[in-house]
């Protein structure tokens, strides 16, 4: 079966572009047409930048025609989660409070993708300020999972994951604080990677929890993931938390060979709360890796069960401070009528923020308050160190750790919205990696009821090459990447 342009991945499209068989404008039109056709149903996009995209595609074609040196992303249509600042294009964080905010500057990753010739087609939906696991916390609308529109796409980067899965973007960027790239990647059957903290600049990413936030790719294949990561990673003088070291080449790590790779399987990730069907698919993937020559061993990360409470103290604490700036004074939503400045602050914030954001601001404010700081925030920091040490020990013996990405299959819309803790549980397997600052990737390892199951690979800090190598070898052998999310809803 011949794939249409919007169905192809970066590597395939790059081939066609350099052979001058198609133009960037044709690819972009194909993706824009696809958006026109399906986004009414999927609702991946908050903003589609049609004119800007076509102009960027034309510029890419000119560079290609002039025979200028072009990278693999030149002329490739992509989407950005709407919490990355784009000069002149609204950046809403899917929040009422930033619904009218147009940044006067580009995020570093946006600059880098533009420099690489990628073509932005739009900004994607998310849980408000990236707080959520289903996009149901978006102030605008809920995105649908292209595999089954009755289910959620995951979150918070649900719009980016759904856009890639539905062919509405060839790749997308998401941000991950507690699993916000990997869990939607798992739900939508795409590849999603949260890099090591500090590999990708956060400048221009609207902060949720500064010590955890990291931008990463959502792609159709592991190769594409390596290509996008290469384009966005690297030192940035505007972000002091960005690592100063040069970035290694990622594509060259994709050898297809996992012989001798030491794979650890932490038992804690297969216990209570994990759907046996998910555990089964993941176990099958582990068996395949072993069959391919990897050395698989069971191991333990004893502090795993603390990741959720630690995360829900540290992330809200930072968020309570990061979100203080949305007060209606300089930009964003301001209440139409108020008695005085305090009243204006309170009304603007009460009316501008959604329920989950308010819940986390309250949680975080409480955790930092005098008298509670030591018991909650400081204690959480200490336990965070213990979680990190678990990983340090594990990575002295293993090259990668393998777990499920999400404990469950994509759940139905509305199923968990009334139960925040049940919603928090869907990040059970993804919370520890950002707490430890380590890289982690999710890719499809099977299907249950026609819904994708995600396999998570975690590695030591700056161990992206090894993770990509194992993921790529597995992907090529298992072949799930060939299956596309197309169903009855398209007719």
């Amino acid at each position: 079966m011949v794939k249409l342009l919007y169905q192809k991945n970066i590597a395939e499209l790059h081939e066609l572009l350099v052979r001058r068989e198609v133009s960037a404008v044709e690819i972009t039109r194909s993706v824009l047409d696809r958006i026109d056709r399906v986004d009414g149903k999927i609702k991946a996009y908050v903003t589609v930048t049609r004119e800007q995209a076509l102009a960027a595609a034309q510029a890419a074609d000119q560079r290609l025609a002039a025979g200028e040196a072009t990278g693999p992303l030149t002329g490739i249509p992509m989407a950005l989660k709407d919490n990355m600042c784009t000069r002149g294009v609204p950046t809403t964080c899917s929040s009422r409070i930033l619904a009218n905010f147009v940044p006067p500057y580009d995020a570093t990753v946006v600059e880098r993708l533009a420099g690489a010739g990628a073509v932005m087609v739009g900004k994607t939906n998310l849980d408000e300020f990236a707080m959520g696991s289903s996009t149901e916390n978006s102030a605008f609308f809920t995105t649908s999972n292209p595999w089954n529109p009755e289910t959620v796409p995951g979150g918070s980067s649900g719009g980016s994951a759904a856009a890639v899965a539905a062919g509405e973007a060839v790749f997308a960027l998401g941000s991950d604080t507690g699993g916000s790239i990997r869990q939607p990647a798992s739900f939508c059957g795409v590849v999603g990677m949260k890099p090591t903290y500090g590999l990708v600049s956060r400048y221009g990413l609207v902060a949720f929890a500064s010590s955890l936030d990291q931008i990463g790719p959502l792609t159709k294949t592991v190769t594409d993931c390596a290509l996008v990561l290469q384009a966005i990673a690297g030192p940035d003088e505007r972000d002091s938390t960005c690592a100063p070291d040069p970035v290694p080449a990622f594509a060259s790590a994709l050898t297809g060979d996992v012989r001798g790779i030491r794979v650890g399987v932490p038992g804690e990730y297969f216990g209570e709360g994990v759907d046996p069907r998910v555990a089964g698919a993941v176990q099958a993937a582990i068996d395949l890796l072993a069959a391919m020559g990897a050395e698989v061993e069971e191991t333990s990360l004893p502090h795993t069960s603390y990741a959720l409470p630690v995360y829900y103290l540290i992330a809200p604490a930072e968020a309570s401070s990061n979100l203080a700036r949305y007060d209606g004074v300089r930009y964003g939503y301001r209440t139409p009528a108020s008695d005085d400045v305090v009243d204006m602050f309170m009304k603007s914030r009460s009316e501008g923020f959604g329920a989950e954001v308010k819940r986390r601001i309250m949680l975080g404010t409480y955790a930092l308050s005098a008298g509670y700081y030591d018991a909650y925030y400081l204690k959480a920091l200490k336990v965070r160190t213990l979680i990190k040490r678990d990983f340090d020990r594990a990575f002295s013996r293993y090259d990668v750790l393998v777990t499920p990405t999400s404990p469950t299959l994509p759940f139905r819309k509305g199923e968990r919205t009334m139960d925040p803790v049940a919603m928090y549980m869907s990040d059970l397997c993804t919370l520890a990696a950002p707490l430890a600052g380590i890289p982690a990737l999710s890719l499809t390892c099977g299907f249950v009821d026609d819904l994708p199951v995600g396999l998570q690979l975690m590695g030591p800090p700056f161990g992206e090459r090894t993770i990509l190598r194992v993921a790529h070898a597995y992907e090529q052998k298992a072949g799930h990447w060939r299956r596309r999310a197309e169903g009855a809803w398209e007719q």
Partner: protein
Amino acid sequence: MSTEYETVIGLEVHVELKTKSKVFCHSTTEFGGDPNSHVCPVCLGLPGVLPVVNRQVVEWAILLGLALNCRIASFSKFDRKNYYYPDMPKNYQISQYDLPICLGGHLDVEVDGTRKRIGITRLHMEEDTGKLVHQGTITTTPYSLVDYNRAGVPLLEIVSEPDISSPAEARAYAEKLRQIIVYTGVSDGRMEEGSLRCDANVSVRPRGATQLGTKTEIKNMNSFRALQRALTYEVERQIEVLEDGGRIVQETRAWDEGQGVTLSLRTKEEAHDYRYFPEPDLVPLVIDPAWVEEIRSRLPEMPGARAARYVEQLGLSAYDAGVLTAEKALADYFEDCLALYPEAKAVANWIMGDLSRLLNAAGQSVDRSRVTPERLAGLLRLIDQGTVSGKMAKEVLEVMFASGAEAAQVVKERGLSQISDEGALLDVIRRVLAENGKVVADFRSGKDRALGFLVGQVMKKTRGQANPDAVNRLLREALREQG
């Protein structure tokens, strides 16, 4: 018999650093400018921006810390101080909480001839806020305007130990601190312009008591004089409250310069919980000891050492040395002059006398004076050459001060130069001798005082421009010849 009280004061001084750019972004720190013209996405706290520390700020914090005899931390970090106020773009201030960059220094001050060492608890870095403009108070004004030009300007906060025991001592400490700040060159330390701000914690207790009394915090003191007045008032107020059997309320009070009183701003119950926590957007500072030593080597000569050098090497009096080194700018000016005209006493006298008088009258600082060291040296050379008399030089200096002209030019333009041309002088002398035959006869009969009269006549005829030494010599010669 009434109780005797002792006063306990600690000062918190904020200094605005004169770096070119702000502490966490590239925006300029220049004064003035249209409202909100010295801003960028970072200092406006737009979504998604990140702070990056200005290295110069860290360097100057260390420099000032060393000048104040502090220990420089090898590991330090920034923290967020959270509170809502519309002049703060992020609704938190990046400051330093439990690991400041400098700790445990001291400063020696002198009050009424008694020397005292005041401990310095800590010195830390933080960012300044913007400025609000409204009618009346922020809660009653129909609207407020915000100017973020100052938001993000680097500040150092210097916290003293509660070692200060009188308002006069507090003033001496603040003045000495300012002197050192200006000497290190990290700030111009102008209290009136707000580049140096002073808050005080004050309490009183019966003399000999071991426990500290309840303190109040005093703000809004915009000059050294205001500091001393406010503290004097507050100490008296507290004693009065206690004498009346009352209790001191722990609160923040503002000095009202017009009324000469402190007024309650807010009590402790309304105090903020700042919810400090480590700033996750910045990495901790690991200070290399070699860097600290390198900075120490660049520490300028402090005023005390400089004054001692003037006494020992230049032979100035202790008083003169003290006056000249009070301001770094004045001492620098003095040394610049000295390099061009190496007569320390003469230079010191001209600077401390006529030039200082003119500067004070004009409210000008010496480093902005139009009489540059080159020009002052030029004037002193004209005196040496006999072109102008000391008295005339004072007039010349006034013109130079007003116009910015060179001494020689002023002398020429105003025809002020002394008549040293002997031919011209002899003509005048001959006329004077001819007109005053009786006085000449008196001189010859031994009345030496008659010579003074004749000199006076010559000076009168030359409208004071004759060189007095030359007149004396030529008169004696003429009288000898005639006789």
